[in-house]
């Protein structure tokens, strides 16, 4: 009997993973934060910059893009930042703090499945945000994008990887929810700035632009800007994001605690 169960191990683990995913998905929808952060914020920013763009048509001085075109990548990255730096670490730290991870760890399901389910749920929200921002900017606010699919997919994958792994590193290092709130909030603000929420790097120039381009969120916004106009992202942005993602992932797995 024990031998027979070895054969069905694969189906068992798939069974419990899909159940976990379903439950985590429902929880994310019940908890308004994830929806507001991942989809609400991008919609609001889309409308705000769309209206600004309509009020001042034409290219932004110093660039060949309109306001909404210049901000489409930044808005997408901002959605990733809120999900990856706030929702994801807060959820994991809360699960650890209330003993939920510990509780799951005494069942046959490894608690890492819980983390995987959380990642997938946040990823799904991020993808929904991307669809809304791209289609909304084109259909409603007249952005003339020319999305180059291979470049775009590469840029999206790396952007999400770098920001989500940064969030997991926070979840690994902070001891409690209140610290997660403080640290996550502070870093979120920094990443929003570096992604160009207040001033796009394309318009600032000089050393500040360089700093932005070599930051996790600035590199992401830069790569996405190229890819939505069907150009190859600068290799510096690709390398920057890859290095950050690898370092963050390594440190997060090294220091993550389940209890």
């Amino acid at each position, binding site marked *: 009997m024990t031998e027979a169960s070895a054969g069905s191990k694969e189906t068992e683990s798939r069974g419990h993973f899909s159940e976990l995913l379903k439950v985590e998905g429902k929880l994310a929808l019940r908890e308004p934060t994830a929806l507001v952060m991942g989809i609400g914020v991008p919609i609001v920013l889309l409308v705000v910059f769309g209206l600004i763009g309509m009020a001042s048509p034409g290219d932004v001085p110093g660039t060949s893009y309109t306001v909404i075109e210049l901000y489409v990548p930044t808005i997408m990255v901002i959605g990733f930042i809120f999900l990856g730096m706030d929702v994801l670490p807060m959820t994991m730290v809360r699960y650890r703090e209330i003993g*939920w991870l510990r509780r799951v760890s*005494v069942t046959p399901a490894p608690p890492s499945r819980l983390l995987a389910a959380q990642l997938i749920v946040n990823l799904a929200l991020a993808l929904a945000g991307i669809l809304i921002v791209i289609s909304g900017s084109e259909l409603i606010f007249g952005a003339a994008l020319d999305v180059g699919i291979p470049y775009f997919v590469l840029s999206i994958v790396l952007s999400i990887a770098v920001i989500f792994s940064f969030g997991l590193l926070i979840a690994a290092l902070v001891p409690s929810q209140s610290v997660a709130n403080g640290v996550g909030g502070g870093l979120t603000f920094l990443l929003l700035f570096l992604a160009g929420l207040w001033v796009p790097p394309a318009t600032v120039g000089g050393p500040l632009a360089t700093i932005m381009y070599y930051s996790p969120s600035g590199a992401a916004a830069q790569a996405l800007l190229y890819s939505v106009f069907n150009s190859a992202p600068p290799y510096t942005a690709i390398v920057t994001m890859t290095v950050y993602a690898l370092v963050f992932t390594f440190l997060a797995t090294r220091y993550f605690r389940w209890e």
Partner: protein
Amino acid sequence: MNHPEASSPLEGSHQGLEPVVTVQHLVKRYGDFAAVDDVSFSIKEGEIFGIIGPNGAGKTTTVECISGLRVPDSGSISVYGYSPGKDRNRIRQFVGVQLQESQLPPRLKVGEAVRLFASFYPNPLDPNELLETLGINKVEDSGFKKLSGGQKQRLSIALALVGNPKVAILDELTSGLDPEARRETWALIEHIRDRGVTVILVTHFMDEAERLCDRLALINHGKLVVLDTPEAIAAMAGGNRVRFVPSKPVDDRVLHSIPGVNQIERKERYITVSGTGDLAASVINSLSKIGVSVSEIEARSGNLDDAFVKLTREASDVSGALTR
């Protein structure tokens, strides 16, 4: 050699009750502090085994080692022949655990939680039946944060049992429950045992231990103080007491000559004797022989509370004496 039954310690007095959990010389240190210091016991199949002791005695650490949550510094543990350290994955399939102070995500619903946990195990119980047995089917659609203390505990029991475990470890199950909810929870634990599940119950409530447990391990300062049935441990408190009013004055010498009497206390017209055996009967018999009748008899057998206090105090006296 002439007594083959004696050479098989596994069988003991309970025939057919094999030890399913064996803990030998368990040691667990946190830094310099030995939370569990050379504890050994074995638990038979189908019994309710209680682990009692004062706060911080090492009860939780002991069961955490059995469930594989903590790795012992030395000693060995076997659960149905598997080691919680090495065969962790195997053990998790048939050991159900209820953790002290572990919560669920606030918006997770009762039914969802039980079904989710059922999906973790190869041969789970039917979640609907379990919810009904535990009396939480009516709150199936309520989120965890909306539940009362008693409902949370029932859910916690449900999660420990839904995997159809052979061994259930329940840690401080009834802390924070009102008396009625506690009684209901006790009935549930007996119900679990009747289904053939071996139950390891960690508690600091003596009434709970006395009522539920077949055998008790009293742990203090990380050491096993005593391991016996609740009745036997209760008897260690100096046993029984009888209080009565004699029809005429009785001398202390006379009272001391009554079989079983160890101590005498007088208060107003009452005499209280304590000792061992059937004290009330011997008091009545002995005194009637010298023409003294007794009235207002009140007999009390030794209880676990007294034994607990006495045994834990003795243990600290001993360690105090050793360091002196």
